[in-house]
């Protein structure tokens, strides 16, 4: 009798269309955080070539930098970092109990600024071949 | 089916029920609450105004008692009124000690405000949501004490022995229907059953009461043999929103809100309903004025008039009446800063109920009642604002203690048929009461009288009732209920006349007959609200009949009861309580004395004018 219907996790994921600003901020912050920590590991790995000597280090770095795809990924990385920083600041303010009423606006602002910086940085990253 | 055993069973978990349960628990009883809604869903939460209590220097419970007797239009019983006023300060402070978030003065003491009909500002409040705080504070105490709560458990009937004279009967428990599972359970109470099921506002089409306010307790006690007292006294609130019945508080008029009819006239003055007070006249006066306007063709859509507060200015409104803006926009879709609010009178409070003494005990031993479902008679013919909440806590606590076996003194109010002073003298146009010959309340009297067997037999009887309703391929109860509500609203409203009341009795009879054909179309045992509401509808019919019968008999104008052709209060003839007893299906109307003799003075009836 006391049977009931559990709609499960799948359905709650299916509700993403109904997410509001705070939820999106949460999702994006998670995503960017994971990308950043992933990058940190790779970054140290790449830099480790320094142990094998100058040629290796310079070669690896410059080799990577000459690939267009890497440059594009760097733009992405910048965007990810910028968003994470800005939203991180937003969250820090929220932790301090400041600007809670503007939490959605500050999220949108983070997005816009991230976009602007990412686009603005394209010449820097893609230039210099 | 399960049988549960406790010392005290409290039916209903609104303010009165919660207080009763805590009191019984403190007296050492094993107490359980059985309620059809989770406790915090009870309608006590809707009360806004406050709790009257003579707490402060300069105030005195005697003054509170005097105001209450006058407000009751001398139909209150002095011993009950005095108990209310004496105990209220203590009980109100108890709530504070339990952490209730009362509004505060500069010095950190609880605030009190003036209220209509009171000679001292003694209405203790917590913002505009006193009832909400009261309800939650007491529920918290129930949780703290670990009191067992059976929630979403609908009590269908009381388990009472079937001696011929109700005064010889004993109540041994009640039957609950578990709404979630559809199971019937027996609740055995060795100490007593306290009914605290709230008011029957759903008798009317338009009410400030919740959908759950179907007065089940009254109907069950009535059928078990307890008379219902003074049911014809129904308070109508003049300013409720037409589409939902949500209450717009007196505060709006207090701040200067104005009532207009459809011709744009400020009718309270233009038509002389209240040339002194205008919109601030008492609830019943304003309610009648509004209906008169509408009947004269000067109303708006939905039989409403307009309550306008725009001239007060946005600043003042948001400062003092902010919640009204929310209420009007959320529940009526009207922004009161931009347009006037439509309002009309709505049923608000039932002064009458289950006849009890000051200990909350009825004439059936082991059966108690407290709160709006009861009538100890503190409100008489008209309740003062802010007097219901103290009633809940004062008489809730007393009933709980008494049921737990504590000695709370010998009551002065006599109950049951033996208090009869005279028979009713009225010709109902139709037969009243049971349609078919009914079985006695319980068959327990025959075999052996053990509480268990009485409960078990009642349970069988109720199981049959449920099965019958589920199996019948009948009409929808909602149709019957809405017809009942319409006739009550049309004929037993703020204006009453003989023809209308007789018509209502005929319609009620018709509803009763049609109810015989009612069936539940939802076949499920899980959360079957169709079944629950069908049972509730039966309860409404029983009470509507009692109410209308009392109103037809009472040929005077007292308190909330207005009768065409009888424009005076008639103390010679009508200074008496109306009683209607089910009498095994053949309703019996009779009268009992009003007790005006107080502890140290007699309350002489005076003209009630404010």
């Amino acid at each position, binding site marked *: 009798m006391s049977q*009931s*219907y559990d*709609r499960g996790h799948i359905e*709650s994921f299916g*509700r993403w269309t*109904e997410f*509001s*600003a*705070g*939820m999106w901020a*949460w999702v994006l912050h998670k995503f960017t955080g994971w990308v950043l920590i992933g990058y940190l590991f790779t970054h140290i790995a790449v830099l480790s070539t320094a142990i094998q000597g100058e040629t290796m280090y310079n070669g690896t770095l410059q080799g990577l930098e000459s690939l267009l795809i890497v440059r594009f990924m760097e733009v992405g990385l910048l965007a990810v970092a910028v968003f994470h920083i800005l939203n991180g600041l937003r969250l820090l303010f*929220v932790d*301090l*109990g400041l600007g*809670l009423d503007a939490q959605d606006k500050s999220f949108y602002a983070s997005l816009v600024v991230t976009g602007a910086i990412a686009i603005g940085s394209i010449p820097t990253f893609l230039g210099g071949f | 089916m399960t049988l549960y055993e406790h010392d005290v069973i409290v039916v209903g978990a609104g303010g009165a029920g919660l207080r009763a349960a805590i009191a019984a628990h403190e007296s050492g009883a094993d107490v359980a609450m059985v309620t059809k*809604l*989770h406790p*915090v869903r009870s*309608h006590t*939460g*809707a009360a806004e105004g406050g709790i009257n209590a003579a707490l402060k220097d300069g105030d005195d419970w005697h003054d509170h008692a005097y105001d209450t007797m006058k407000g009751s239009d001398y139909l209150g019983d002095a011993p009950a009124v005095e108990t209310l006023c004496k105990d209220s*300060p203590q009980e109100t*402070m108890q709530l504070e*000690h*339990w*952490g209730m*978030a009362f509004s*505060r003065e*500069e*010095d950190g*003491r609880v605030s009190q405000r003036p209220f209509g009909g009171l000679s001292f500002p003694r209405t203790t409040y917590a913002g505009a949501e006193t009832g*909400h705080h009261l309800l939650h504070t007491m529920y*918290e*105490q129930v949780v703290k004490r670990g009191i067992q709560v059976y929630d979403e458990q609908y009590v269908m009937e009381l388990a009472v022995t079937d001696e011929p004279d109700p005064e010889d009967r004993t109540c041994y428990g009640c039957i609950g229907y578990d709404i979630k599972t559809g199971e019937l359970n027996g609740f055995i109470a060795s100490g007593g059953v306290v009914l605290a099921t709230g008011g029957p506002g759903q008798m009317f089409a338009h009410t400030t009461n*919740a*959908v*759950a306010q179907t007065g089940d307790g009254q109907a069950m006690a009535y059928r078990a043999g307890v008379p219902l007292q003074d049911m014809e006294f129904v308070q109508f609130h003049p300013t409720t929103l037409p*589409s*939902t*019945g*949500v209450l717009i508080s007196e505060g709006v008029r207090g701040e200067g809100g104005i009532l207009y009819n459809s011709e744009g006239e400020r009718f309270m003055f233009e038509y002389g309903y209240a040339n002194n007070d205008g919109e601030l006249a008492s609830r019943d006066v304003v309610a009648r004025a509004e209906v008169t306007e509408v009947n004269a063709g000067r109303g708006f*859509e939905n*039989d409403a008039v307009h309550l306008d507060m725009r001239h007060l200015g946005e600043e003042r409104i948001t400062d003092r009446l902010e919640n009204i803006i929310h209420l009007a926009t*959320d*529940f009526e*879709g009207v922004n009161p800063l931009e347009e006037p609010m439509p309002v009309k009178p709505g049923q608000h409070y039932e002064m009458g109920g289950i006849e009890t003494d000051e200990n909350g005990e009825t004439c059936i031993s082991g059966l108690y009642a407290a709160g709006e479902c009861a009538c100890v008679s503190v409100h008489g013919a008209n309740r003062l604002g802010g007097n219901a909440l103290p009633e809940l806590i004062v008489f809730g606590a007393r009933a709980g203690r008494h049921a737990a076996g504590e000695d709370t003194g010998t009551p002065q109010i006599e109950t049951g048929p033996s208090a009869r002073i005279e028979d009713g003298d009225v010709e109902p146009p139709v037969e009243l009461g049971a349609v078919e010959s009914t079985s006695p309340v319980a068959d327990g009297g025959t075999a052996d009288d053990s509480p268990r067997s009485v409960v078990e037999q009642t349970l069988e009887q109720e199981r049959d009732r449920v099965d019958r309703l589920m199996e019948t*391929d009948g*009409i929808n109860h*909602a*149709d019957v209920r809405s017809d009942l509500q319409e006739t009550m609203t049309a004929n037993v409203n703020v204006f009453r006349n003989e023809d209308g009341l007789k018509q209502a009795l005929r319609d009620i009879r018709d509803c009763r007959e049609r109810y015989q054909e009612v069936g*539940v*179309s*939802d*076949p*499920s045992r*899980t*959360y*079957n*609200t*169709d079944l629950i509401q069908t049972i509730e509808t039966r309860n409404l019919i029983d009470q509507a009949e009692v109410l209308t019968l009392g109103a037809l008999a009472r040929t005077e104008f007292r308190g909330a009861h207005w009768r065409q052709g009888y424009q005076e209060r008639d103390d010679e003839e009508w200074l008496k309580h109306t009683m209607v007893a089910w009498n095994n299906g053949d309703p019996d109307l009779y009268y009992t004395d009003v007790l005006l003799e107080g502890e140290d003075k007699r309350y002489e009836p005076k003209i009630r004018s404010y």
Partner: protein
Amino acid sequence: MSTNVPDTDTETHADTDAQPAPQQRRLAKKRERREHSPQSETSGDTDQETVELKVFRYDPEVEGKREPRFDDFHVPFTKGMTVLDALIYARDTFDSSLTFRHSCRQAICGSDALFINGAQRLGCQTQLSDLEWPVRIEPLPHQEVVKDLVVDMEHFYEQMDAVDPFFKDEDVPDGLEEQRQDRENREKIKMSTRCIWCGACMSSCNIAAGGNYLGPAAINKAYRFVMDEREDGDVTQERLETIEAEEGVWRCQTQFSCTEVCPKDIPLTEHIQELKREAVKNNLKFW
């Protein structure tokens, strides 16, 4: 007005054979009677505007409802009508087995929190005119459905109980003496005391879904007592320990959806954040 009742397609016909025949007959009879009975329902509206409701249906016991589905109801619209009004109309007119909790009709009992057009709201507090039509009505997400729009609230109640939701001070003055409380302090706890236990917040929070996180309502309840100056220090200390525990405030990821849906406008995220700081402060002072 009586002719307002659309006589067609008030329920999905997919389930015609699933429904017991008597019910079908009854419904038909009922409609017929409605058509003929002189309806005194008051409404000056002459426009026949109807609002379409898409309502989630499920009943573990009834053939044809075991597999959840949506039913359509066409309800005549009147000014001021709320989602709850429309549901009641649909139930009383078309299908008496349509099940939902409701009582007060004025946003105080907290029984009718529903998922309406993708957001948690109280049916009684939501004007149809403020919504996009058709209106989709579902039970609260993240809770198990008992039947139709009724969800199991047990978990919510348990979480509320977990924070000792009651005033604990035993050391109160005698008799008619009250505990003093500053106006500012009362003001501080005011919003937190407005909770009506509707569960909307809990249902909207992704963190509370599935797990054992206390959830915004319970934390808010704790806040109400922690901040109340009438409770003494030891009790407050105890309370802070509860909310600091494993499933307490640290779970909150400031998603804000609780604050957005709360029908009583309680600033839940703010309260949770304040408690986080309170907890840190409380512990830091011993360093």
